[in-house]
């Protein structure tokens, strides 16, 4: 079934709001089918027939309904539309991308909130462990660098200082948990990704403890486990607890972020031209044709 698909801008007050699809049907069979169906489902949206121009509303897209380009044809489910030229093809992609990008930016923001809280928690924990390490080596000097509030004469300042570190970390864990619950309730992030993030945080915590305790065998076993789980990008874990934490969070969180957005939404950002493009069977940027593998 063939139908021509074109793009028209809808402008209000000179500002382009949305690009719309216009369908020109010149295939009898297609016309018959469409008329029988009354509506045409395109990009996950039911388009009422009889109108040449169709307003695309912002909605949640499902990766399965993404249109796929094959040469000059745009395939959506059982329908295929002829895309007259490259310019039109880009316009169509742009048209899809607008609501998708809106959604992506929203999820991006929400995800960033959880990631930032996770990163802050792990770095704060690293800071706490390094502080306790310094407390072990030189308790008095460390106590004066960071002064705990000791209320009675006989309180042990070291225990108070350690407790304050624990409380600070516990408060951040609590904030992170609240954020996770909020995101799950709002269906911004899916459960499996949240679990992956939780596992990563716990694993980094285990690694931090192993480095803190200077137990080489434990560092090695935790490192291997993380690597097997795809949570640790590198086998060797050197440097201070803080450096290690920074390295792991930077690498893992940015990778996970990208994966979540790409896979969950079916949209990727091209590392070559910087534009967003729909994931397609060609697996390359719609604009500059750079393969997505290179984007990784």
């Amino acid at each position, binding site marked *: 079934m063939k139908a021509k698909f074109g793009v028209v801008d809808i402008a209000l007050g000179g500002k382009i709001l949305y690009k719309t699809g216009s369908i020109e049907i010149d295939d009898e069979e297609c016309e018959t089918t469409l008329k029988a169906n009354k509506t045409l489902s395109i990009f996950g949206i039911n388009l009422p027939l009889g109108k040449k121009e169709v307003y695309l509303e912002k909605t949640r897209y499902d990766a399965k309904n993404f249109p796929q380009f094959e040469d000059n044809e745009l395939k959506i489910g059982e329908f295929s539309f002829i895309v007259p030229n490259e310019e039109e093809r880009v316009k169509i992609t742009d048209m899809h991308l607008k609501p998708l990008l809106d959604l992506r930016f929203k999820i991006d923001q929400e995800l960033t909130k959880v990631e930032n809280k996770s990163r802050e928690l792990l770095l704060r924990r690293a800071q706490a462990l390094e502080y306790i390490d310094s407390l072990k080596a030189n308790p008095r*000097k460390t106590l004066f660098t960071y002064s705990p509030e000791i209320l009675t004469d006989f309180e042990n300042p070291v225990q108070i200082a350690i407790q304050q570190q*624990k409380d600070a970390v516990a408060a951040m864990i609590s904030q992170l948990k609240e954020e996770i619950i909020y995101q799950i309730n709002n269906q911004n992030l899916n459960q499996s990704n949240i*679990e992956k993030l939780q596992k990563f945080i*716990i694993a980094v915590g*285990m690694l931090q403890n192993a480095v803190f305790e200077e137990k080489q065998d434990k560092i090695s076993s935790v490192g291997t486990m993380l690597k097997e789980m795809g949570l640790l990008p590198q086998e060797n874990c050197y440097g201070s607890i803080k450096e290690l934490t920074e390295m792991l969070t930077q690498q893992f969180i940015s990778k996970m972020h990208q994966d979540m957005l790409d896979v969950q939404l079916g949209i990727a950002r091209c590392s070559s031209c910087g534009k967003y493009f729909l994931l397609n069977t060609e697996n390359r940027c719609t604009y500059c044709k750079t393969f997505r593998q290179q984007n990784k």
Partner: protein
Amino acid sequence: MPKCVNGHLSNNLETCESCGHQINLEVSLEELSEFPEVSVPWKESCVLTLGFPEPLMNDAHIIQIEKGDNIEENESLFRVKIEGGKTWSEIVVENKDRFKKWVRRTGFYCAKRKLVVIDTTDVLSPLLLQELSDAGNMLVVALSADESSNALEQNISYVAMSALKQKRLPTIICPKSYVDEMPFFVEDKELIFRNAFEEVIIFFVSALCDLITMIKVNQRLGVYFHYFYTIFSASDMVYPKPENAISFQLKQIQHVVKQKDIQTAHLLGRAEIGRHENLIKAFKKVFREDKDRLVNMSIRLFEKNSEYGLYDLVLILGVNEIYLSNIERGYQLIASKNPNLRVMG
């Protein structure tokens, strides 16, 4: 450490190593607020000094209070800014909160044994002694003003010693003029003249465990205050018999303490092993007539290798009260001019 749904600790993030059940990610996340156990190596002894240069010793942590041009505090120093001739009373008001916080943060109260060495004629001494708490296992070594001190020194010392008296802090006292007159030789490659009081403190720190035990026994018998006199590098040439040295010490202390008030007697010493028995006999001989009256007597001798046969003795006598009558004149004189310089509370 990850915890499974049944509460087992696990090294695995997928399933529990003990029961095979799933890991509880939420609980495991909360576990991150726990850190591995740590033991912090406090030195067992902490010495808080006022009015003396920092004694050189490695087996105790030294913290100091001193006067200066600026306020400063760190893990071992508390400096009070003294300008425009501040009185002890003004210093107490301005610095007491800061001082209390500082002492807590140094971990002084957490040390297993605490020694406070204080020159009570120092203008900072009322601050220290009024704000110091009795943390147990603590001993105050105080130099007191005496007749040779000026009125201002007597006033300050009187106030500081009154705080000791009021708080019943376990104390051993020595009049300051004795310390000033206390020459001391150290045996190195040759005999070196050194600050005697610094050596006394080093000796006290090395014997702190015994000293505190002795003081605690006395505390239980109601004896909180002690007077001491030291003879370091004593020799047979100066004291033909050890009882001569101990008797001399006793006489020196009796310039301040009345014989009838003495409740306990203790000898702390360092000498060659071969001399220990003689020292014990000498101590018993000197206090022969008092042994039925004294509630506690003890001797603790340490080994000392001496090329010249020198030995060190500290005689400590326990009494019921701190004697302030010899410095009351100076105290009253100053207090009559400025009512703020009276004993508080």
